[in-house]
């Protein structure tokens, strides 16, 4: 099943997922710091901040999920495989697809880890 066609993978598709991860990290970091750095009242609940982070997290996870799906399909087009040490366009393609898949998986997990604090901590303590 070839939906997106071949030879569409490049460096940009490869780094898309980690870029979303980086964005998510900075977003959570800045927003939480903006909320808590004044140190005004560590016991006030920060529902708004948690909600905002939750929404952004869902969006990021969906985007990374789409990248996972796409790279998975592209990779499976010619049966997957992890050999990429030949000097051929196919091997290059396969390398990019498989790396994209792994990086997207890692980014997905990382985004979930980054969200765990707002699930468990409800204020600026």
């Amino acid at each position: 099943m070839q939906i997106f066609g071949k030879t569409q993978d490049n460096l940009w598709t490869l780094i898309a997922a980690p870029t979303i991860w980086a964005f998510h990290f900075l977003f959570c970091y800045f927003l939480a710091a903006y909320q808590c750095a004044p140190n005004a009242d560590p016991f006030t609940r920060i529902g708004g901040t948690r909600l905002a982070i939750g929404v952004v997290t869902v969006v990021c996870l969906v985007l990374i999920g789409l990248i996972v799906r796409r790279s998975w399909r592209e990779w499976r087009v010619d049966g997957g495989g992890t050999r990429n040490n030949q000097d051929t366009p196919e091997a290059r393609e396969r390398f990019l697809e498989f790396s994209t898949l792994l990086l997207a998986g890692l980014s997905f997990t990382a985004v979930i880890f980054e969200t765990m604090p707002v699930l468990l901590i409800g204020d600026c303590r």
Partner: protein
Amino acid sequence: MRRGQASSIFSVIALLSSCTGPQTAFDAAGVEAQRVLALFWVLLTGAVAIWLLVIGLSYYATKGDPAKHSEKTGLRLIIWGGCVFPTVVLAALLFWGLKMMPELRRPADGPTIAVAGERFWWRVAYDVDGDPGAVRNLPQGGVPSANEIWIPVNKRSEILLGSPDVIHSFWVPSLAGKMDAIPGRVNRLILEPTELGIFNGACAEFCGTAHAQMGLRVVVASEEDFARYVRAQAEPAAVDESVGLSLFLQNGCGGCHSVRGTPADGDVGPDLTHVASRRTIAAGLLPMTEENLAAFIAAPDHLKPGVEMPAFGVLPDAEIEQISEWLGSLE
């Protein structure tokens, strides 16, 4: 070889002996320290188990016969052992640690004590109305003291931390983790001791020449003793018309030190109203004795290089002795 073995055994023993005593996280006497210690043991055990597993696998991969397994088995090992397992373990540890944080920092039910890290000693004030963070500087007032902090046992005391100069870090390993004392910000640390005793603390953030000699004592007392102690500290000094007092005032000590009940009302150095009630002088450096007081007054920078108190070695020994004798009577 022999000698190497002996010295390594010796250093292991030396290391182990530091696992008990008044200044070690391995001898936890407070709730936070106990939690952190549990976390440490779990992490250590897990790390050792995983290390053994990985080393065993790599031994098998080089010395054994891994080729007899199919590629599929290998792939499965990578996915389960290399991806799923670490992810689950890390998630569980993260969950555990994150859950601990707000619990350990929940509001106090004991006294609020303001502690300022100052180069190179700790300014202490009991009975302040603390409002962490609402102010950028520590609350003023309260009952002043220095370098020795009393707290009641089995109560959650709130330590408000600040600093007028550089960043310091307040650490009493037996009771809790460290917390920075930062200029322009008030941090809070909860100390919830579970045992009576005297514990050592230290500055854990390099702050200048005498950083390593910026210690403190924490005395964990019963609630009654704590209340009695603070009441006693609030009293003015038991002064008489001694020569020591007039020498103290004549030589300008009062420009930096307060002795409540006398004209000495300086605010640069530690409050000396009840200096003799403390166990140590110069931030945990020396035991509280009249000889040590005299030695410190004569040459503070000799005992504590970089100290922010001028030396008074130019004074005749007899005068220094009289001052020390008088200070030694201020319980």
